[in-house]
């Protein structure tokens, strides 16, 4: 079970990561503060279920996935994202523009996925969780997770290419 001091450190350290993750899971910008708050309140309420010998992020990711999907915090017409891509100061304006366009296409391609595919693709291919961590977080069998990821990658690539051709 996570202790109080560790929990304080957790939300201090992981809030920025959680914010970005919830956005990738489809929570619109104007709902992110509430969603972040709720994930940590739920995490605190359920702290007895956290195993200290396991990494924290996959556990939080599981809660975030359930909240993002089950509470239907996402809404149509979400606000445009304002955060910029990470580029070095040496990058040209052209490179910055290309990066922003790429990220817009990533967001639209993620929006084209259903919750199950989106969760596993975000968790594995963006957050970098190992499959065993992810299956535990999402409470799905390993084979199911792999199957979802394969389908998610196909659907993501199709949507990403579609955005490319329409750009």
């Amino acid at each position, binding site marked *: 079970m996570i*202790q*109080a*001091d560790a*929990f*304080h450190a957790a*939300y*201090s350290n992981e*809030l*920025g990561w959680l*914010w*970005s993750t919830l956005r*990738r899971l489809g929570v619109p*910008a*104007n*709902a*992110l*503060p*509430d969603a*972040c*708050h*709720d994930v*940590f*309140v*739920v995490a*605190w*309420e*359920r702290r*007895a*279920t956290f195993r200290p010998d396991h990494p924290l992020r996959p556990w939080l990711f599981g809660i975030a996935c359930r909240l993002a999907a*089950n*509470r*239907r*915090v996402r*809404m149509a017409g979400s*606000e445009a994202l304002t*955060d*910029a*891509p*990470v580029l070095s100061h040496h990058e040209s304006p052209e490179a910055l523009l290309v*990066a922003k366009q*790429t*990220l817009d*296409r*990533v967001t639209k391609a993620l929006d084209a996925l259903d919750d199950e595919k989106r969760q596993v693709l975000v968790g*594995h*291919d*963006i*957050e*970098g969780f*190992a*499959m065993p961590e992810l299956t535990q977080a999402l409470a799905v069998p390993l084979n199911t997770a*792999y199957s979802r*990821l*394969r389908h998610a*990658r196909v659907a*993501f*690539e199709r949507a*990403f290419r579609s955005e490319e051709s329409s750009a």
Partner: protein
Amino acid sequence: MNDPLPSLPKDIAEALALEAKRSPPPQAALAQVQARIAASVAASASLAPAFATSVAKVTAAVVAALAVGGAGGFWVRTVSAPAVAPHIIVLPVTLPAPVAPPVEAVPAPVAPAAPREPRVVAAPSPQLERLLIERATVALARGDLAGALDACREHEQKFAQGMLVEERESLAIRALAAEGQMSRARARADRFHARFPNSMQAQVIDDALKK
């Protein structure tokens, strides 16, 4: 990562890697959320003294930053909780766009220090549902058992099939147990375990019934 999946196309892999490196959100926005989390967690019945100190530091720092930085648009009210050191709840009232048409505010569990009661943006659902659960959580943490049960009752009336029924039942059972209504608490806990056999709330419910 060693897995049996085929490799991603290079451009797709690069696009996902770029997404993973997006800039973090604004620090001010994070500080506001951090203060809200601190307040909510501090209201928990399981508050540890060391954590109360940490919470006081967080809330004081955020309020000071708001005062110095001029990040207005926040309603700050002092809360006197009997079980814990006085702390501050910072409620944002100027979030980007409201997520749904505003309705009447859910009554706060304590009277605000400010003379005028600001309207909290709420909605029929799921924002109102969340507000009711948070109200019950805070009331239970402060020892306001009647208030917690009222909020649970209101949630039950308005969200019989809501998304947070599991949380509501957990709060109601704990409030009943704390009030000494053990037979009602146990009966409700039995129904809870039957309905949510794998619930993460099971342990805290069982702990409450042992006290």
